[in-house]
């Protein structure tokens, strides 16, 4: 009916309300927003505590000039995957312009694999498709993430932090073999 409806706080000769009056529609939107916020916060809590979500960890500090020659990274090529317990593996990885060492990793189905990754030159990224592994690889910092691989198949991993001319060619493959264990 009215062309010039009043709104909360608008001046002029519109209908008047007492101080602090909020339009019911507006109040409902506030309630809805609060519900949404609580839902999001609960989702984060569930992800963190019930589902065991982990964020990439700043595990240790190393010297990027020498780390490639020091244990445990020094035999990363010859011994890329180490079994530390039945079904639990550890990978020590070095990222450099423009490759991963190691860049082919093979583990059996159902294994839990922990990455300790660092860079010896600039920043790189490690994103393993279809897993929760996505981290920045910072020179001087060891980043750690753990994932469990229940499905056999090939999981390509790529560098997604811009690292220079060869950035697009920096990738590797994680293979999960079926039928063992």
């Amino acid at each position, binding site marked *: 009916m009215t062309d010039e409806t009043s*709104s*909360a706080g608008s*001046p002029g000769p519109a209908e008047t309300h007492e101080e602090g009056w909020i339009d019911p529609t507006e109040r409902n939107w506030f309630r809805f927003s609060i519900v949404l916020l609580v839902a999001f*916060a609960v989702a*984060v809590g569930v992800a963190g505590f019930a589902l065991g979500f982990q*964020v990439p960890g700043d595990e240790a500090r190393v010297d*990027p000039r020498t780390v490639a020659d020091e244990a445990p990274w020094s035999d990363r090529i010859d011994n890329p995957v180490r079994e530390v317990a039945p079904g639990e593996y550890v990978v020590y990885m070095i990222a450099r312009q423009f490759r991963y060492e190691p860049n082919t990793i093979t583990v059996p189905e159902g294994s839990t694999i922990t990455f300790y990754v660092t860079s010896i030159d600039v920043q790189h990224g490690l994103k393993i498709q279809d897993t929760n592994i*996505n981290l920045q690889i*910072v020179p001087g910092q060891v980043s750690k993430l753990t994932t469990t691989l229940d499905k056999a198949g090939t999981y390509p991993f790529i560098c997604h932090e*811009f690292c220079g001319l060869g950035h697009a060619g920096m990738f590797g493959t994680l293979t999960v073999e079926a039928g063992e264990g």
Partner: protein
Amino acid sequence: MAVTAERVTLRTPGETGLWSWITTVDHKRIGLLYGVTAFFFFFVGGLEALLVRVQLAQPNGEVLSAAAYNQLFTMHGLTMVFLVIMPIAAAFTNYFLPILIGARDVAFPRLNAFSYWLFLFSGIMIYTSFFVGGAPDGAWVGYSPLATQLPEVVRMDYWAIGLNLLGVASIASSANFIATIFTMRAPGMTMLRMPVFVWMALVVAFLLIFSLPPVAIGLFQLFFDRNFGALFYEGAAGGDPLLWQHLFWLFGHPEVYVLILPAMGIVSEILPVFSRKPLFGYEFVVFSGAAIGFVGFGVWSHHMFTSGMGPVAEAGFGIATMIIAVPTGVKIFNWIGTTWGGRLRFSTPMLFSLGFIAMFVIGGLSGVTHAIVPADTQQHDSYYVVAHFHYVLFGGAVFGYVAGVYYWFPKWTGRMLHEGWGKVHFWLMLIGFNLTFAPMHILGLNGMPRRTYRYGEGLGWDLWNLVATVGAFVIGIAFLLFLWNIIWARKHGEIAGNDPWDGRTLEWTIPSPPPVHNFDEVPVVHSLDDFWHKKYAEDEEGRLVEMATVSGGTLVDTGGEGEGEVHEEHHDIHMPSPSYYPALSSLGIVITGYGLVYLSWGWAAVAVGAMVTLWGLFGWSLEPITREEHA
């Protein structure tokens, strides 16, 4: 209109000629300069984007080398953020902020000119790098130590020095706008009677003043790392590469709000006019903007969720990022509330404003998915992020600024843009935009990383990349049409008159284009949307009744119930005299910048530039306040 511009102005700056533009201190002319420059850079940045899209149209693209691609995407980002969206916002703010608050100019007109010239020269300086060995190629975020590597190539020095100079220009204009808003409002223009656009400009000015220093320090540290063997970001020597990311994003995230808030302000001006209703919940919109300004400083680390900050920091920044969605959501609901039940007119500015709301909602919601740490760590640095920020900065900011151009073009030129072509432009842009950027959500979730100059076949990325490239060309066509519309309308557009849209705010009370002094008589403001209330009243049922006190669109003070009526005598209006010293000072600063880029032999340029700057600043301080001869 009894008093003409000639009679009330003692020193009208030269109306024509290059020199009149170089020496101008008129906020309207400086606004136009900002706008034209930004529009030019928009086409340059758009061309870079098209080249990038051509390269990515098919797997194993052969159009560009990795080296060329890296320069192009870096310069595309840098250009669009610093040389297009920030200056187009500055153009609107320069032109309309003083008029909207009833002032005749900004507080420091020569500082205003200085900001423009420093911005222009810095932009040109960054672009000259293309011709002398290559443009910056370390991404616009310049993550070190990649950006500190390769010191024999000066590309990233261009980037570091250029961005710092642009920052100086922004800080100067921000201080200017704050002083203008706080000291030069017309009688009766209280803070809560200011148009929302002015409020947003105020928030943006504070954001810039507080966010630019961290990145300025960071850029100097980076420059020192590159040129003087400093080790701020050198992990090998105990420096911290992540420090750069913190400093950069401590600027970079408030910067996002710097880009979007003025567009929100423009949309908040347009929606009430084309809905013929006041803005729904004015105070909520204003204080939401201010809240965004405050919370905007507490969310920067959501750009770094995969960098190993640990769960406590990530939870904190995740929650802060969700909280900032609240004031943003409040604004969206208020815009929808403004149109609700209004008598809508779907003119071009309104279409672009509605497009802004729709596209910004998509971008805002995908932004909330970044607040959720588990989701963000999956999306980090994938094309999903590219899709998100283009929905915010193109679907949001650019739609908002284009809406502003259609809305205010009549005030700049006295002529209307063509409505029919405007509508074609809108639909082409909306379709092209969604074709380009919606597929990037899918690409990103399928794992396509950012900033790769090519990708292999068989990864499932072929189709959507092709679609995105087609969409990019549709956007290109839309903007060529826009350019043609502007060129056509400057000569042949319909004559606009003072108030073509039946507006609500003070700019529509004065002629189009406005006289140099804006207002023959400083207006006295009695309420929010003052001009509207002078044109219309309401009857008992709330219907609009046109009032008879408006003649020819000129505001006639009816001597209402307002306090402190000031009827000015028609004495001569002193406008600031033109000066070339601001341009000279900024030229000197940029010469110094060139010297710093080529440090090994550039000391002479540093010295010359410093002397030119000093010459400019001395001349600036010592020149007579008014020009000798009276025009």
